[in-house]
């Protein structure tokens, strides 16, 4: 298995990283960090574009009506490209959105609750918060929403 | 109910892990030829000389994949007084292996031992029409038919052998009787036929 890059490259990476230090929160480092992320996104988009373009040059284009039909295990498609599905899925979506909003609050809390000046009080506050939602989850459970019909 | 929850899951993991450490059973086919059991049903070979165009095979074939064409030939009479005899001459014998389902009925019904199973199996074609093989190809496969496997030590004697032996014994007995009878007058040499027959069968 390739050790990612040659050790030399790893060393150089380490040097750069050391140069940029591990405190990206410092002024300036913040923008640099996200600029690098943005740059990577651009590189990724470039990669996909190049791949698609190269693919367009290489591949054959021989469309036939049969080929362009929807694939349904080899038989001619039945009806349209839509099928009735169970509504039950949707309840999970509701539940998720609500719980996700809840989970978001855990993150700022997680970073501060053990810091001096917060401690047990903050812990209890969060437990109250989560407790309310756990009650909601229990309610959903009791109502049989979580079990499939 | 398993005594410990998740025990079945762990067991499954153990099975796959154990299999991974074992030797795999894959045969590397094109590099290593498979060892086929005797009487493998690979393809059907034709021994043309034995075929009398009786059409039994074609008629018994469940999916009608045997094609036989023939014509009659008149043989001039051997003796001046005899009638002229007719003989069937095979023009075409073909098996469509895209239809054949390898049931082996044709081989079973052939009364003259013209058809044989050959273990040869590498006759794939890119076009389905080319899977109809004519008699020259079928004849080539004939030479790949292995000798029949030896009988089990305690096995009953095949019928043909038994019949041949019976005949041979009878003839031998007859010859012996004749020898005894002719002991005084003149010695007649025993017929060589009996020995020959025994060998043939």
């Amino acid at each position, binding site marked *: 298995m390739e050790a990612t890059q040659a050790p030399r490259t790893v060393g150089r990476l380490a040097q750069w990283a050391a140069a940029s230090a591990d405190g990206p929160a410092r002024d300036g480092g913040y923008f640099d*960090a996200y600029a690098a992320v943005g740059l990577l996104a651009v590189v990724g988009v470039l990669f996909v574009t190049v791949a698609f373009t190269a693919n367009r040059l290489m591949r054959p284009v021989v469309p036939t009506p049969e080929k362009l039909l929807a*694939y349904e295990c080899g038989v001619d498609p039945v009806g349209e*490209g839509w099928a009735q599905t169970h509504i039950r899925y949707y309840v999970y979506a509701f539940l998720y959105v609500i719980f996700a909003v809840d989970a978001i609050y*855990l993150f700022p809390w997680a970073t501060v609750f053990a810091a001096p000046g917060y401690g047990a009080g903050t812990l209890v506050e969060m437990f109250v918060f989560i407790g309310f939602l756990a009650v909601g989850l229990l309610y959903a459970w009791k109502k049989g929403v979580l079990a499939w019909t | 109910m398993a005594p410990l929850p998740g025990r079945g899951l762990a067991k499954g993991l153990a099975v796959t892990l154990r299999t991974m450490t074992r030797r795999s059973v894959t045969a590397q086919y094109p590099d290593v030829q498979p060892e086929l059991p005797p009487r493998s049903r690979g393809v059907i070979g034709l021994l043309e000389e034995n075929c009398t165009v009786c059409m039994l095979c074609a008629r018994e074939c469940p999916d009608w994949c045997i094609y036989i064409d023939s014509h009659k030939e008149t043989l001039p009479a051997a003796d001046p007084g005899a009638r002229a005899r007719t003989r069937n001459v095979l023009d075409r014998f073909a098996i469509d292996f895209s239809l054949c389902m390898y049931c082996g009925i044709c081989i079973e019904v052939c009364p003259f031992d013209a058809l044989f199973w050959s273990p040869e199996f590498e006759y794939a074609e890119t076009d389905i029409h080319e899977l109809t093989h004519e008699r020259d190809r079928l004849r080539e496969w004939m030479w790949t038919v292995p000798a029949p496997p030896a009988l089990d030590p305690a096995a009953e004697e095949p019928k043909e052998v038994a019949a041949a032996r019976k005949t041979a014994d009878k003839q031998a007995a007859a010859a012996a009787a004749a020898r005894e009878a002719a002991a005084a007058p003149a010695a007649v040499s025993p017929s060589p036929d009996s020995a020959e027959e025994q060998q043939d069968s």
Partner: protein
Amino acid sequence: MTLLDALLRCVAVLAVFLVFPLVIGQTEHKVMAHMQGRLGPMYAGGFHGWAQLVADGVKFAQKEDVVPAEADRRVFQLAPAVALLPYLVVLIAIPVGPHGLVGQAVDAGLFFVLAVMGVGVLGSLMAGWASANKFSLLGGIRTAAQLMSYELPMLLAAASVAMAAGTLSLSGIVDAFHWWWVPWQVVGGFVFFTAGLAELQRPPFDMPVADSEIIFGAYTEYTGLRFALFLLSEYAGILVLCALTTVLFLGGWHGPFSDGLGWLWTLLKTFALAFVVIWLRVTYPRLREDQLMRFAWTVLIPLSLAQLALTGVVKVVIS
């Protein structure tokens, strides 16, 4: 940091992104084969078929790109890129070794990673909808439902680690790691890894692509390179998930000689987890859709909430 420097890092990340998933995919070919008593690919490249996936890639690149006549052309074509790119972007923030050996340290790293990974599912949704195929659509719907059920335990488990470390920075989390975190966070690790598997739609959670029911889910209509990109995104997802689990729950680069060989530890742990992913795929049958949902909501979420409580209490007690 200069632009060139940043660019080099990006290229390095891209290289990792293109090579590692192939390594994982090849490992999957071989491990799966041997677990099933087979040999797997043996020819491509000579030695035990090591170049099989490269050959696959070459093949995919030359195949015709079929867009169904009824499909929404643009969305259909764009979907693989949407599915793929989030994993690439995420990869930059995952620390490999000590002393800042990371593509780019991001302060809210954990949060960033979780947020961006969630975007990838849009690709599957787009593919499912745009294919104009009812099986694709069902696959898309199942993908969405699965994401919604499993994102939550994943978030909660990740929050537990963030609580333990008191930071959202991935490097910071690894820095704060002690060996006793492993037993402390083991439930969270289990939940995170399992939920991640489900989000990647890996067996046994591969209901959205269940071939015996809905052909290949959202990817049914895809051919050639676009199909390959979807597959690549799945394996890149495995890489990201295993690397993240390593960083969050297994201590990342911590291990003997971690000063010099830290990156090796991260890699080893990541690949060990990738092996587990493959192992699970070979071992377990697919869960039914209702079992899948119930598992998330009645097992994983309560477990992760319990882990949160445990983490919070222990943390307050020891500090």
